């Protein structure tokens, strides 16, 4: 039986993902996710030996093709002001954001 994402699980995922969906969007997306899970369930029946390794990527990175990592020397960036200026709100080199949520402890 295909796993189904319930509205509760979906709401939890939405919170984890730092999104905020209205009811219509939520239903449409939840439906598409469950539709996709059906495709994913094709994987369940594949016979997999215990010793099949995981591949986090395809190409085998041998020493010959792996670049040497550079020395861990920090170099100052030429124009930090340009980068900070990208922020929607900044002041004297700081990026301004609203305060974090506050919780009153018992």
């Amino acid at each position, binding site marked *: 039986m295909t796993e189904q994402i319930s509205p509760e699980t979906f709401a939890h995922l939405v919170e984890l*993902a730092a*999104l905020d969906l209205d009811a219509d969007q939520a239903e449409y997306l939840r439906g598409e996710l469950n539709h996709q899970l059906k*495709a994913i369930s094709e994987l369940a029946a594949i016979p997999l030996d215990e010793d099949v390794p*995981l*591949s986090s*990527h*395809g190409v085998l990175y041998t020493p010959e093709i792996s670049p040497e990592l550079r020395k861990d020397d920090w170099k100052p960036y030429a124009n930090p002001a340009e980068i900070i200026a990208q922020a929607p709100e900044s002041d004297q080199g700081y990026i301004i954001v609203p305060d974090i949520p506050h919780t009153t402890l018992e």
Partner: protein
Amino acid sequence: MELCDLSAFEIGQLLREKRASAAEVLDSALERIQAVDGRAGVLEPGEEQAEDKQRVHAFITLTAERARQKAAEVDRQLAAGEELGPLAGVPVTVKDIFCVAGTPSTAASRILANFTAPYTATPVARMEAAGAIMVGKVNLDEFTYGSSNESSAFQPSPRNPWDTSRVPGGSSGGSAASVAAGEAVLSLGTDTAGSVRQPAAFCGVVGVKPTYGRVSRFGLIAFGSSLDCPGPVARTVRDAALMLKVIAGADPNDSTAAAAAVPDYLAGLEDGVRGLRIGLSPDYFKITFPDPRTGEYTQQPLPAEIEAAVRKAAAQLAGLGVEIIEDVPMPNTRYGIPVYFVVSRVEAASNLHRYDGVKYGYRTNDPVKDLTELYRKSRMQGFGPQPKLRILMGMYVSAAQYSAQYYKRALKVRTLIRRDFDQAFDPHGKYRLDALLTPTTPTSAFPMGAVYGDSVLMQYADQLTVPANHAGIPGISVPGGLDADGLPIGIQLLGPDFSEATLLRIGRSFEQATEGEEWRKARPMVLR
């Protein structure tokens, strides 16, 4: 035929022989853009305009001023007798998933619509250092999530120059459409599940997915970090080889860019294919689709016209001295899309966490009570439905209680997919193939609106291209004919790691052998 319709190679010759200037070549491209492109994609497109349906809409940002400056520089070098770079004076477009300093680099998303990149991606920098003239940033599916370009937040989205009622393919839809329509000679795209090869097939041009790590990803806005491959789109195989030579190679800014030497892809391009072993697999002549009634996944044969084009290509290659090996088993091909639904979504979710409205990009203007609400509203308003789907699926299948069942299992099946290729290409194995010949896509270009909205059906457009992304191996798509509706059919060649030179050589031989065929005389609708 205009200057903008020439190949990069021909333009290079013209410039060096002083029969044309870079400024003239650029003018030709800009005139073509003016004639066929129509409105560029924007966030608020308003009412559809009368001519929208007949235009290509490849662009998000035209960079005419920058292009003029670069063309002037090339002409100055020419006049001063200085040596020209290998792409000098060649008009190119860049998929707007690459950061290019001083240009809007949007990923076709509202969340980066206001982002001007402070640096330039390595492959773009290399092309510009070689003298290429970037005429603009072209449209794509939002964050490269799609196979039709329709999901872009910048509308109208690109249309197929061969039939503007149809999609150009995706996610490098703007790249393939701009090259097919003569708006650029070359384009830099990316291929994560087929996003260079599939639109190349739909638009009748050449597309290369290099080996993973062959081209640096520095400056590429990330989707699937283990899958993404920047790659060339061109009208001829030689042009694709020329561009790949420029962009490939190690990069101190990308530790996954392979240190393997970059061969001269042009040397040996014309050497022919005698003695090569090219395989055909029954697993690439079947396509998987969900049954519309039952929802069950069934396999059907490939559409006859597409199979015929591949088999005809095999026969032509056999005539050139290739040994065609039939019945090569690639049994895990059918799991490519299910694995992709898991692996790519986990990587996408991770790569999209950084878009939080804090440091750059879109921040909500709504009043918010705290930082968490800032994140939620910015992401909610900034991302379209495709990024949201990918983030949510990625979080689900990697969650602690599900990851063994989904993510880890998918990574094991990825090993099996790689093994299919290892066995096919093993020089001491049963098949000892130099390449596998397959169709690129299960269909030719579908109509705008026909598939969008069904995220599974859309993803299955990539079923014949995605295995190469899981395995990391290179693949190219070259035009292989036209279907009964006059739409391009692409044929695909897949090879072992770092075998781009062989794949290009086979592609070039096929291109030469079919030079005089009727179908090569056809032109895209927008150019008739």
